[in-house]
């Protein structure tokens, strides 16, 4: 059965929509709030922020995470900063400019109303984080510092050294722990969500596996929030943490939540290049480094000289050359593609020819090593630990790597999915960042959703929906539990020859080769032949040692790989159907001088996929995007 996609964008001018919507939202009185239970899956910025804010309001919250502590959530690894339209630098910033930059940065494939709300609440986020004690960088006068990030010509990025994500996450975690202290938030760590329970068409609970004991548990609630992050690990090698998975989102998808724009993935331009076959992940070097670092390759093909021996005149500072107005701060999708072009031309600088230089020599000359160390010391140290090279002396070598996913579960303006009562926040939803995310926007979106949007929209749902009492002995819970146990037993009983990792790596190669930085019709069709074969291999030749009623890391991995395989197939189908280039989705057939060529006539829409059953083709639905406040233009950073 198909659902009509209603984005529920409020009427009125773009500046007034959110204010009006908050006023029009139903309220739940304080005495009734404590009668409502809300489940939050994931404890990153979006999840912990929602749990903290909902707990403060008096709701009973049950927070779940796969980690041993909520403080491990991958938001912790964000380095560079968080955007906010404060205009503290007096450089012409405003809510409207942040809105405009984000819509343009997303290559006009996001929903205007959502992005405007994001820009509006960005200023509240900074206020809230400072009040919570997040130690942002400051000037000598005691005011907050800012730096610049890609795709913007103003300095609106707030930061805490190169560890902004860590500080925001720890602040958010602390606020959530305060609610654990008050008793309003109940914490369930080392639990992996494996199904959503839908009763009378509404999300009423989840099934989780206790990762320590293997026990399958049911938890009931009046609403469920999924804030389980993104799916870059579909590529196996990405900047994501090892436990990042699509599983929670994917299980919700299989229960009826549409999955939107899965092909919108972000390849981050500045990561440490791949070094060998046994590598487990890729490490990001913050975009903030491009404030002071200059990207270049030798002008000559195959020039293998030490970088110090290559004179200025023989270097190609290609971002400055191609994009004179944004230079090294061109947005991520653009900078990644340019790095790929240079390496494809044979001008890559490491042994594999898959790297470009990020050079700080000029900045060190201008500002001194101390200043550079103060700004980026921890990043330089990390680079040296991983590569064994000193970036103060020799330029960093970097290459693009999968980093963030703009696609995710489809949500309306209220962040509600196509399953009533199932809300999706942060990277797990698709909503605000279009086909490409600008730097320092992910932290902003996670916190906006968790702290400032969900407390209103969830209240509106709970206040306006008749919810009968349900308990975990309901048949729907029993049958969902049975389904989860059946799948676990099926994986355990294969007893084949291959580890989950080896199959995951193979999937990663297929995705990177055919659905990575450049995509084309033939390649995507090849991938769509290879992935079902890999799925078959998984279900016939997987090996999981140990047993399922115990802590079993291999079983955890296997379950996640099974979901990545299915998602990978959908990504390729989505990429094949979207016959245009936009943002991070670059179809080689659709380009002008190496830049993305959109097709606004035919593809100015969100593609939301409906799951229709095992091994059946998913159905593609459209939500047309309307641009009333931003002129649909060709994106240019030249």
């Amino acid at each position, binding site marked *: 059965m198909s659902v009509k996609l209603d984005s529920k964008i409020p009427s009125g001018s773009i500046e007034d929509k959110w204010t009006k919507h908050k006023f029009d939202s139903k309220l739940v009185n304080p005495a009734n709030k404590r009668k409502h239970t809300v489940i939050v899956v994931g404890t990153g910025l979006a999840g912990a922020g929602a749990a903290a804010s909902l707990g403060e309001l008096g709701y009973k919250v049950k927070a779940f995470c796969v980690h*041993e502590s909520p403080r491990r959530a991958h938001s912790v690894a964000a380095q560079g900063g968080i955007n906010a339209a404060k205009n503290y630098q007096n450089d012409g910033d405003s809510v409207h400019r942040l809105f405009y930059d984000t819509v343009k940065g997303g290559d006009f494939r996001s929903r205007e109303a959502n992005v405007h709300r994001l820009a509006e609440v960005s200023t509240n986020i900074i206020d809230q984080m400072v*009040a919570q004690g997040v130690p942002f960088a400051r000037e000598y006068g005691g*005011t907050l510092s800012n730096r610049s990030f890609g795709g913007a010509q103003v300095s609106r990025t707030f930061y805490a050294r190169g*560890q902004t994500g860590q500080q925001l996450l720890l602040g958010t975690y602390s606020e959530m722990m305060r609610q654990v202290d008050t008793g309003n938030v109940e914490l369930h760590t080392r639990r992996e969500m494996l199904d959503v329970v839908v009763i009378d068409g509404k999300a009423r609970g989840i099934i989780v596996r206790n990762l320590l004991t293997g026990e399958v548990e049911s938890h009931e609630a009046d609403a469920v929030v999924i804030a389980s992050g993104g799916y870059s690990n579909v590529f196996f090698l990405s900047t994501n943490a090892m436990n990042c998975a699509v599983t929670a989102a994917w299980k919700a998808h299989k229960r009826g939540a549409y999955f939107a724009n899965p092909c919108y993935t972000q390849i981050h331009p500045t990561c440490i290049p791949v070094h060998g076959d046994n590598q487990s992940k890729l490490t*990001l070097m913050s975009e903030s480094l491009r404030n002071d670092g200059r990207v270049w390759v030798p002008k000559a093909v195959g020039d293998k000289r030490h970088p110090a021996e290559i004179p200025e005149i023989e270097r190609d500072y290609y971002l400055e050359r191609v994009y004179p107005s944004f230079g090294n701060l061109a947005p991520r999708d653009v900078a990644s593609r340019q790095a790929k072009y240079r390496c494809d031309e044979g001008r890559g600088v490491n042994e594999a020819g898959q790297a470009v230089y990020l050079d700080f020599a000029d900045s060190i000359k201008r500002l001194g090593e101390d200043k550079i160390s103060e700004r980026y010391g921890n990043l330089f140290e990390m680079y040296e630990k991983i590569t064994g090279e000193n970036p103060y002396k020799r330029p960093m070598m970097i290459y693009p790597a999968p980093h963030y996913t703009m696609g995710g579960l489809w949500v309306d303006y209220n962040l509600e999915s196509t399953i009533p009562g199932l809300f999706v926040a942060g990277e797990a939803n698709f909503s605000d960042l279009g086909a490409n995310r600008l730097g320092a926007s992910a932290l902003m979106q996670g916190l906006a959703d968790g702290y400032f949007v969900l407390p209103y929209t969830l209240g509106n749902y709970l206040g306006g929906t008749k919810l009968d009492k349900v308990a975990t002995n309901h048949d729907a819970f029993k049958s969902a539990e049975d389904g989860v146990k059946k799948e676990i037993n099926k994986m355990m009983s294969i007893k084949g020859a291959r580890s989950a990792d080896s199959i995951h790596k193979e999937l990663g190669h297929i995705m990177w080769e055919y659905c990575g930085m450049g995509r084309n019709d033939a390649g995507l069709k090849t991938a769509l032949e290879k992935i079902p074969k890999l799925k078959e291999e998984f279900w016939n030749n997987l090996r999981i040692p140990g047993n399922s009623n115990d802590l079993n890391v291999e079983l955890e991995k296997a379950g996640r790989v099974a979901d990545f395989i299915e998602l990978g197939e959908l990504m390729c189908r989505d990429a094949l159907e979207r016959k245009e280039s936009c943002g991070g989705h670059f179809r080689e057939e659709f380009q002008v001088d190496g830049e993305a060529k959109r097709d606004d006539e035919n593809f100015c829409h969100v593609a939301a996929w409906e799951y229709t059953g095992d091994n059946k083709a998913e159905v593609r639905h459209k939500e047309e995007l309307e641009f009333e406040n931003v002129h649909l233009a060709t994106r240019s950073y030249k």
Partner: protein
Amino acid sequence: MAGKFINLVLKVWRQKGPKDAGAFSEYQAKNVSADASFLEMLDAVNEDLVNKGDEPIAFDHDCREGICGACGFVVDGEAHGPQKSTTVCQLHMRNFSDGAVLTIEPFRAQAFPVLKDLMVDRSSFDRIIKSGGYISTNTGNAVDANAILIPKPDADEAMSSATCIGCGACVASCKNASAALFTSAKISHMALLPQGQIERKDRALRMVAAMDAEGFGSCTATGACEAACPKDISLTNIARMNREFMVANLTKQPKHKDGGAG
């Protein structure tokens, strides 16, 4: 640097569960790339184990960038291994020589019970944070961020304390298994900032009490924690915690029964 490979012998603590006695088992790590991280070296050992149908060595890990704090075990008697200021996920194999024999075991402390192999339960840290490691400010109450001016040296000092990743190396390296460095880092971070003043005393009293209740030992200022800390959290934090705790104890105000009316 590329192309260098080494062979190692690993003596790894294997323990099936919290109640199992546990023992060391020996494994060969062959053809380990010098560019691999320590955990990637273990990944390869585990891949071999799985291929043989054996259970892999369980260890906690996640970001592998040294920031989430999930990883951590003891290598040759040192928490996170031999490299200073480095988590074990950021420790690379170029720091080891060919033929080395390495002993790998979990963090050991009464308040960190072993769950399996190298995994321990550090939820005691969450309970310490729960007991006051926060600033009580509900969403929506905040004033404009620049209305709170903070001298840069104070902000920098608070940031240095706040960089603690909660990995537990301080506890594992302390002969008393004290959590003083972890607890003091959070108390310091908030005591240094104007936002943290209102609850400053209560925070110090409650967090110290929670730390003691979890069964962590007392601090005898040996400095082993600071030396093992991958984030260089300074002993100064412990001195500050002791001062905060003492001042709070000496100047405690009585709670007024009728204080909440209104």
